């Protein structure tokens, strides 16, 4: 879905198509029963689309239509990315990437990166708490002071991240990572109805996208 959405968005500039795309994405979130979390992540990102709209409309000499169009494009990409990351676990992603016969090490790097983003975020929060408890006021001072205030945050964050990756590497080695060339999976992904449905929908949409891009209209 994400792939086809980005594909369509990059090609198509027709508002109607974009609206169809967005509607479809939102319909899918209902189907996947993640409306609440989807809504949360969208309320976080949607202002971005709004800012893009205002910026385009007022700052650059583009028309209302183009501005709306650009904003909707951005919105569609954000919506479909949210949908993707809310429905797909790193484990599933790993298996899919294996299907494509990507090198296992590369897959592992990707999976670890995705999985450790929230961990890093939690680290950052904890470090901020610790430094606040030492009297550091992040919100205070002029720009220079604020920049300097990020040092006590960034240095431990990087140190913790580097340390963790070294420890993780040792732990993986000692748990026999890489002992077999093609490790088997404990869980096997199966294509079921909803997967077929979204795949076909994705292909249909992408085809429409290409068609539109080539001929500019449906008929």
């Amino acid at each position, binding site marked *: 879905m994400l792939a086809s959405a980005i594909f369509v968005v990059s090609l198509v500039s027709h508002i109607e198509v974009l609206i169809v795309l967005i509607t479809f994405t939102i319909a899918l979130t209902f189907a996947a029963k993640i409306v609440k979390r989807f809504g949360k992540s969208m309320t976080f990102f949607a202002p971005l689309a709004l800012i893009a709209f205002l910026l385009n409309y007022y700052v650059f000499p583009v028309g209302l239509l183009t501005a709306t169009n650009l904003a909707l494009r951005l919105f569609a990409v954000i919506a479909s990315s949210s949908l993707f990351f809310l429905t797909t676990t790193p484990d599933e992603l790993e298996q899919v990437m294996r299907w494509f016969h990507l090198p296992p090490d590369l897959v592992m790097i990707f999976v670890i990166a995705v999985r450790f983003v929230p961990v890093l975020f939690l680290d950052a929060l*904890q470090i901020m708490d*610790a430094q606040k*408890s*030492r*009297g550091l006021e992040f919100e205070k001072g002029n720009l220079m002071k604020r920049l300097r205030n990020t040092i006590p945050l960034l240095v*431990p964050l990087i*140190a913790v991240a580097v*340390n963790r990756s070294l420890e993780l590497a040792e732990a993986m080695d000692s748990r026999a990572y890489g002992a077999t060339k093609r490790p088997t999976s404990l869980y096997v992904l199966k294509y079921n109805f909803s997967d077929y449905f979204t795949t076909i929908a994705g292909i249909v949409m992408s085809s429409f996208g290409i068609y539109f891009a080539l001929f500019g209209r449906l008929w």
Partner: protein
Amino acid sequence: MNLEQIAESAPLSENVDSVVRFTNVDYSHPNGVPALRGISVEFKKGELVGILGANGAGKSTLVRHINGILKPTHGSVEVFGESTKNTSAAKLSRRVGIVFQNPNNQLFAQSVKSEIEFGLRNFGFDDELVRQRTDWALNTFSLIEYSNRAPMELSGGEKKRLCNALVLAWDPDIVILDEPTVGQDSEQKERLAQLVKLLLSEQKTIILVSHDMEFLWPLQPRMILMSGGKILADGTAQQVVRDRVSFSHANILAPQLVELFTELGDLGRFPADEFEARDKIRLQMTAAKEK
């Protein structure tokens, strides 16, 4: 009116020297995990408190409320008579020093010395005072020989000691140590115990979060047992240790000495209280010697 004046003008009651008060505090983490449920507790000036409980019981969450890093979801936390709601953690920390469980989460400076100075400068100490307090901290925690080394290159135990030092350097009125003995050798534990006694004699409130019964026991603190975000038991060390039911709930072992004498007491040979038992043993020993 400043805090001291408020304290002076307050009518004499048993609450006069209460420095921290939790009233019906509930706290849920942003992800919805409830970590504290209906906590009501009070800490007094000059009091030594040990907080014990299984992993995930909510001990760290509780103490994070005292310097305002966390604000209660329901209920209120008052520190020195003022609600923490509208005060920043950075401000409260001047009087409430917390040493966190994980030392890696805060060390960033180029040298041990500047790491200690960081907090002092944040709180606006003048140069002379910064120098004095830094020297004091380096000496007290036997970190002098490390003063120019990079904090990140220290061993785990040394880092922990540095974290204790850098908080105590600014001389807070309430000192909270989260797992202070983790990774400390017996000499450092002994020093820490001495320091706790010294701070108590200065009328500071000290809160120790620890699983280390053998460390807590000789200090005989007021003990608070936590489990599942609630307070299970609260009383003197003697009372709490003998509350077997709460104790096993909190996944804690009584100090070995207490275990030993409780078992001997069950046999009917000794009083179950190990202090009484010790006196009895002494008496018998001297009697045996005289023979």
